[in-house]
């Protein structure tokens, strides 16, 4: 394993790998190595030394950090100024049974957003700029360090969800958001998936700016009859009371206020950590969620993002059927946790139409022509 602790060491390593035409795996905290197609026994580039907050400007709503900065460290820094990352980065380490440390770049590169994505969007909506080393061994920048920018191609978007296949990140600048002072959890118990998701969509399309909207069927939450719609609202104390009253008005005064906040565990997939089988995230149009959930026939499942994502556990033999259900709903079934054999066979996502797949390959080659970085993972 090689270690690169500075951007110039990363560039040196990439140039050497390029000269040797030697692909490698990029590792920072190491929590997400089991996601996507297995890379086999490739040399490792350990970038965990590229860590730490470089510049935090709370009044500009901006933070710049080295990519391997632990999420916990970033969150601790931001909370001191009552701010937070907008994309609610999800730490999948318990789900994936990893002992590593979830990092900023790991979360953004795997587009890992928790329930709070509803409010401020995904990593792509928060990453303003970055510095990285491309497959030619050149250090380059994309985006900027201001919140509003349309100068040149929006390369930061591409880095999010690319699973480290385009470049080795060496610096990242995120927009941050004020952290509301209070939050409350409301629960609508004993509802069918149809009624539960319909209630969640009503809140999603209100002016209440919800921070979490999930449906959990009976097996995933106890004491809620056939299932519960769970709603998280945020704000300063008095506005929050008004929002609660408005939510009751929208749904007819049938919700209970509960103490336990299930959303951190939902967003990180922890609800599935101890359930055997493959774990999937199926992204669909929210109104299709009840139907798709039924078609998926999973014993263990839940819906987050008002139905925009369905998490489920399934036997490895179900893979093709799950993909088919997702495709028929014009959605995407992401295989998040599975054996190396399953992941090799089914990939992270379904194969794309030919023209789109070709375009994706061309874009990858524009950054990494020799396919040195995490080859085949995405």
């Amino acid at each position, binding site marked *: 394993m090689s270690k690169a602790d500075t951007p110039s060491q990363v560039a040196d390593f990439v140039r050497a790998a390029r000269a040797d035409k030697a692909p490698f795996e990029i590792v920072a905290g190491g929590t997400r190595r089991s996601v996507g197609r297995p890379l086999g026994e490739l040399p490792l580039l350990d970038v965990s030394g590229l860590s730490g907050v470089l510049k935090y*400007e709370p*009044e*500009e709503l901006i933070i710049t950090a080295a990519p391997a900065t632990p999420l916990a460290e970033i969150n601790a820094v931001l909370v001191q100024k*009552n*701010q937070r990352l907008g994309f609610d980065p999800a730490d999948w380490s318990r789900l994936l049974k990893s002992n590593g440390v979830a990092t900023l770049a790991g979360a953004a590169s795997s587009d890992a957003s928790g329930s709070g994505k509803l409010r401020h*969007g995904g990593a792509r*909506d928060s990453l303003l700029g970055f510095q990285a080393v491309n497959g*030619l061994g*050149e*250090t*380059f920048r*994309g985006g900027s360090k*201001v*919140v*509003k*920018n*349309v*100068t*040149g*191609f*929006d*390369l930061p*978007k*591409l880095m*999010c969800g690319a699973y480290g296949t*385009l470049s080795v990140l060496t610096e990242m600048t995120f927009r941050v*958001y*004020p*952290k509301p002072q209070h939050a409350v959890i409301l629960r609508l118990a004993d509802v069918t998936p149809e009624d539960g998701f319909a209630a969640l969509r009503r809140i*999603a399309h*209100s*002016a*209440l700016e919800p921070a979490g909207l999930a449906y959990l069927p009976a097996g995933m939450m106890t004491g809620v009859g056939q299932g519960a719609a769970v709603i998280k609202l945020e704000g*300063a104390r*008095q*506005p929050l009371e*008004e*929002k609660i009253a*408005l939510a009751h008005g929208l749904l007819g005064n049938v919700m209970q206020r509960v103490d336990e906040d299930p959303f951190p565990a939902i967003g990180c997939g922890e609800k599935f950590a101890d359930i055997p089988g493959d774990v999937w995230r199926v*992204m*669909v149009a*929210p*109104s299709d969620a009840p139907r798709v959930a039924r078609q998926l026939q999973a014993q263990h499942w839940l819906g987050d993002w008002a139905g925009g994502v369905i998490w489920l556990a399934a036997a490895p033999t179900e893979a093709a059927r799950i993909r088919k259900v997702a495709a028929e*709903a*014009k*959605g*995407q079934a*992401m295989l998040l946790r599975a054996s190396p054999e399953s992941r090799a066979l089914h990939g992270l*996502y379904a194969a794309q139409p030919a*023209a*789109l*797949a070709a*375009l*994706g390959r061309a*874009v990858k080659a*524009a*950054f990494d*022509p*020799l396919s040195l970085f995490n080859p085949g993972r*995405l």
Partner: protein
Amino acid sequence: MLLPPTDSKIVARRAQIVAALQKIVPDGVVADRSGLATFDSDALSAYHQMPLVCVLPSNREQVSAILKFAQADGVPIVPRGAGTSLSGGALPREDGILIGMGRMKRIIEIDYENGCVVVEPGVTNLNITKAVEANGFYYAPDPSSQVACTIGGNVAENSGGLHCLKYGLTTNNLLGVTMVLPGGEIVTLGGKSGSQGGLDLLGLVTGSEGLLGVVVEVVVKILRKAPVTRTLMASFDSVPAAGACVAAIIADGVVPAAMEFMDKRAAGAIESYNHPGYPLDAEAILIIDADGVEADVSYEVSRVIDIVAKCGGKTVEATDEKQRARIWSGRKAAFAAMGKLAPDMICMDGTIPRHALPQVLEEMAKLSEQYGLGFCNVFHAGDGNLHPLIIFDTMKPGEFERAEAFGADILRLCVKVGGVLSGEHGIGIEKRDLMTDQFTTEDLAQQGRVKCAFDAQGLFNPGKVFPTLSACIEQGHIHVHGAQLPHPHLPRY
């Protein structure tokens, strides 16, 4: 500003090209001089160029056939929406086909269950809101040209508006697009599920200024209209005090729906233009919108009033909807009002870190003296997006060139303090030659290779955004030696 040299061989084939396009779109080819004159510029009106021919497709199959033909025949393509680009993004080429998307203006589907609308690219920004407002929804990005500009153009430019700070730019309000690639293939990026199952090409395509393909369908998010909106006007004795107040509001955790700044000169011009009631003795004015549920808005308004007072400013609140509209009508008329002060003006567009505002304003005033040209400032203070308006007179020899040079210096200043060349108008031809001030050779080469991944022949909107002619080379590797760009002998246009 130079455009790449015209290919006279293409111009010589004009009759065959027109005939080929007429076969594809029998009722939508504009080839006569008077017809083409309509399309000879966009909102960067200092630049004019007649296109070789203009074609107005009415469906995606026609777009695909046009692009296939153009690629096979090696003819450049310039896409155009409503022609409201302020950076020359839709400026035609003498040897290029202008593909106007204005006829594709169907609203295909309104899906309230999923909070989205599916439209063709020629639908205007405002017509999306009009289609859903009776049900209490709207489309958030609101560029000042929203009455005319099309959603296809908004995607190309990643358009912003007054409410970006809270609601984001076009890119944050899109779920998907269907686009035709330069070879004629049709691909769909994203959709109602919001997922792409691979690289975020939707994010890349948004704001790509017509360099990567032609968008033929767009899925946008719609939002529920906030039940309450209140408008405050704060006035300050000094520009730095207003700048400090903006930073203090943001640092307090308040994200107003809009926060606009104008200096004394702009306020004075606007006041005499349409009398919105701006205080004429203030050195700087902020107009602030708070929206949301009632208690949220009350809380934000009380925070803002406190902070303004601490910063030495005075706040008045619009007492009713009529006064609110009047205050905003002034801001929206800033451009027209300044037009009364001088025969010509250019509107610049750069973003700076908000803390650099006092420094930038001071240096702009110095530049103004140096160039002997007046200017005023209106800007989206919440997100640091400056719109200095430079006033000049084209009838006076050399003034246009001086105004352009002044504008370029302002943008360089934005970059110098850590900002960018464009916050929402795009690069187009207007700021193309300044790209090297913001980006290194490696940065630009990387973007150039991305362009090549879509458009290996370089036929899409040539001469826009990137300052150097660079061929797409095998494996995308452009050789860079020292600080030299490839092909140093080739002209930078």
